[in-house]
């Protein structure tokens, strides 16, 4: 199956002498040089990516890096100079005007930085706009708009006009307008940038919650890497219209492709971005219930460790076998590890938890912090050194993961 949104070689040149600018761009010339030679602006050059259903894909970059242009190429509000955009396998550039309008109305919704609400209409009428354009009945418009407003927690203000609402509330209306359309793809151009930090956080929470319920395919533009890290499944870094790195947040943090990306990552709070899963190591040694205490003690000696996780039949953590207890078991002649040899001298954490939530647990026990899945099965461990390394390390530049 094709991805919900597929972009390939997408390029936009503003200005006359487009072909010449494209040729120069193809030769690798930078935006400034192309502007100087042709007077045309290379806003976006050769961007390719695919977004799967349910993914929240973030595009990041400094001001002028082409983010707004890119997102508008995705619904052809701006006509591409080259490249293709496919929505559920349909090439947008092959559509005539009427077909394009239908796709915009039914398949792709957009949320704007400054909300872009119609001031002369009520909140409900704004939320119902896509349905009105679609020619839906008044009852259906109302029903969908009210559902969407309820979803964003704004139903009781449905009769108000946008001017009466605070910024955060207005963007909730913007979100409701996009949700009411019930389209698969959501384009969001810096939707929370104009909001106060606290409100922004609320809106991010709301979006995460909506996304977990509705699983839209989202392209989210931001210039705030903390926001990108928090929301994004994957992040595309743009610089002067060109893609410089594509990866998950932790990938980008731990191996920024160049100085431009590294500058962004330097002010990211790593303890909130990196998760237990990112720092996960294969445990040096694990034992099973029923293993011989002597074998385990010998292995501990080789591994220079004081203890090991003991797993049950199902792979769940049964406890920890510590060297002193193993020695006593040997003296007392017990031949298989059982509950009496185990101590609860360990701590575990879910793979998706950020460092900030477990940093206090690291290095406190005979064994490293255990990382477990939802069923309590051991996935790996996080040694203290790995945490310290991840938080302090100046990232190795130029290394791509």
């Amino acid at each position, binding site marked *: 199956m094709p991805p919900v949104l597929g972009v390939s070689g997408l390029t936009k040149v503003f200005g006359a002498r487009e072909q010449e600018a494209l040729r120069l761009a193809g030769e690798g010339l930078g935006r400034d040089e192309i502007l100087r030679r042709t007077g045309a602006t290379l806003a976006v050059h050769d961007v390719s990516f695919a977004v799967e259903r349910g993914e929240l894909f973030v595009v990041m970059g400094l001001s002028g890096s082409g983010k707004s242009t890119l997102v*508008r190429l995705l*619904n052809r*509000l701006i006509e591409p100079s080259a490249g293709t955009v496919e929505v559920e396998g349909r090439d947008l550039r092959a559509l005539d005007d009427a077909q394009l*309008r*239908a*796709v*915009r*109305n*039914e398949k*792709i*919704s*957009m949320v*704007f*930085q*400054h*909300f*872009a*609400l*119609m*001031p*002369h209409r*009520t909140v*409900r009428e704004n939320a119902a*706009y*896509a349905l009105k*354009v*679609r020619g839906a009945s008044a009852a259906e418009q109302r029903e969908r708009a009210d559902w969407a407003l309820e979803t964003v927690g704004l139903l009781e*203000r*449905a*009769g*108000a*006009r946008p*001017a*009466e609402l605070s910024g955060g509330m207005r963007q909730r209306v913007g979100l409701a*307008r996009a949700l009411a*359309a019930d389209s698969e793809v959501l*384009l969001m151009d810096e939707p929370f940038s104009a909001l106060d930090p606290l409100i922004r956080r609320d809106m991010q929470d709301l979006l995460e919650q909506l996304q977990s319920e509705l699983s839209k395919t989202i392209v989210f533009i931001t210039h705030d890497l903390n926001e990108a890290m928090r929301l994004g499944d994957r992040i595309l870094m743009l610089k002067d219209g060109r893609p410089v790195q594509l990866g998950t947040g932790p990938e980008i943090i731990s191996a920024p492709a160049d100085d431009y990306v590294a500058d962004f990552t330097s002010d990211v709070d790593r303890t909130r971005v990196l998760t237990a899963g990112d720092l996960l190591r294969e445990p040096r040694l694990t034992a099973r219930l029923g293993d011989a205490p002597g074998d385990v003690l010998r292995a501990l000696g080789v591994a220079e460790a004081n203890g090991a996780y003991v797993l049950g039949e199902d792979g769940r953590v049964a406890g920890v076998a510590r060297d002193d207890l193993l020695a006593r078991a040997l003296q007392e002649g017990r031949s298989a590890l059982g509950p009496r040899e185990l101590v609860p001298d360990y701590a575990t954490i879910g793979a998706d938890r950020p460092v900030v939530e477990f940093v206090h647990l690291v290095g406190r026990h005979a064994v490293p912090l255990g990382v477990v899945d939802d069923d309590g099965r051991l996935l790996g461990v996080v040694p203290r050194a790995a945490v310290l390394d991840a938080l302090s390390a100046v990232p190795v530049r130029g290394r791509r993961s």
Partner: protein
Amino acid sequence: MIPHIPLGQWVSDLIDWLLDTVPWLFDAVSAVMQVLVNGLTDALVSPPPVLWIVVFAALALLLRGPWLALYTVLAFLLVVSLELWVETMQTLALVLVAAVIATAVAVPIGILAARHRAVSVIVRPVLDFMQTTPVFVYLIPAVFFFGVGVVPGVVATILFAIPPGVRLTELGIRQVDREVVEAAQAFGARPGQVLREVQLPLALPSIMAGVNQVIMLALSMVVTAGLLGAAGLGAVVVRAVTQLDVGSGFEGGLAVVLLAVFLDRLTAAFGHPTALSRLVRARGRRVPSGAATAAREPASVGERQPA
């Protein structure tokens, strides 16, 4: 020696040619205008003045408030006592017909100019030309085409009043928040829908300011129209000037000013957020769902109004 270019000859040849080729066009235009102005004048003049004064005052009250209503009553009573009611109504009819036609021409051109660069580029110098050409230059062809009387006055007035209507319409539409227009497009609206549902409503204050300008310019042409033989206050003033009658000249001029202030304040209300939001609010109350918030609304809207 620089050769003489017979530009004036060409223009008068063109006018002759037009008169020869499409005389029916001018006759038709002439007849329509005559009917419009005469019909409106009759409607304004036949009932007793009190009736119309009440209507004008009610309009003033609705759009602006009690002070303009009071002014309206006093001003028109003064006009009646000066025995200039009929002339004032003739002038009002001429101004309204000219303003409506000028607006009907100007707004669509303004819309086109806002939407198509090429139209804007062509229209702009034409408007400059129309605005800077001395009024009397229009009058000559107007008289040629339409003879003397009310029609050439109306036509010259229309030509004179169109430019600000076009300009303010174009400006108003261009100033509409680009993101809001994009939003409508992004949800699949057709170009016509974007125009009707976003651009025109949001440009309305500017367009209405244009209409106000159109009316004011039309009024400023009243005396000129009187010169061409249109009945009304212009004729009163022209007669006073030719007879060196300072007194009746002053009275006629005063009536023009009273009418101008009334029309200006009234139509300025359209482009003003006060009147606009009041209308909007009145409409919002009729919608049952809006009723809950209507009580809160005046405070928040009121705070934002410029003084």
